[in-house]
């Protein structure tokens, strides 16, 4: 798995801004299937933006 940076979004606009600002960024929530893709080298991201803390998703995973 390639290294990546991580940040936790505080609200939806924060999450969208973080991903929009970086071409290789991606959202992560539950991790299925993104973690598999990262492990198998099918996906590589410079930054993962964790959206679990956003209340619209119904709470943390």
């Amino acid at each position, binding site marked *: *798995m390639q290294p990546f940076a991580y*940040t936790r979004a505080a609200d939806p606009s924060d999450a969208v801004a973080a991903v929009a600002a970086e071409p290789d960024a991606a959202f*992560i929530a539950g*991790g299925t299937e993104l*973690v*598999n893709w990262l492990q198998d080298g099918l996906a590589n991201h410079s*930054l993962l933006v964790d959206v679990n803390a956003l209340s619209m998703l119904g709470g*943390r*995973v």
Partner: protein
Amino acid sequence: MHMASQPGAPTGRLGPDAIPLVLRVNGQDYPLVIEPRVTLLDALREHLGLTGSKKGCAHGECGACTVLVDGRRINACMTFAVMHADQAITTIEGLAQGDALHPLQEAFIHHDGFQCGYCTPGQIMSAVGFLAEGHTGTDAEIREWMSGNLCRCGAYPNIVAAIAEVAREKAC
């Protein structure tokens, strides 16, 4: 159970180099310095030495790595440790109270709910989650809600019997 505002919540852009974080596992705080790409399972097994949680498939299909995060069962191989730096993690090592086994551990022994035992920690952690979710504990319901935990030895009848026994006791 909700601990999003706990002081350990990581903020800002972290990594990709190793970062300091604290994992709360079985009520104990473990400081760690790991990269964001370290899965929760690898953090538990390789960095904390808590090898009760097993790596079966590492693809989220077998359930051998099941742990509780804030009381909810998840596959530890399919999530990153940094995502859970402010949550309460429970592993198989945290179930017994001293020498007193958890009722599900007792029931798995009593019903011989395993052969090789490799899937057992995941089976038991998943069963803890199953009971906490408030299912009635019929055999059909146990089989459905435990379907994320595979047993290649095929000990399913005894696993179901063990969980059903504890579910009945809980209902009394």
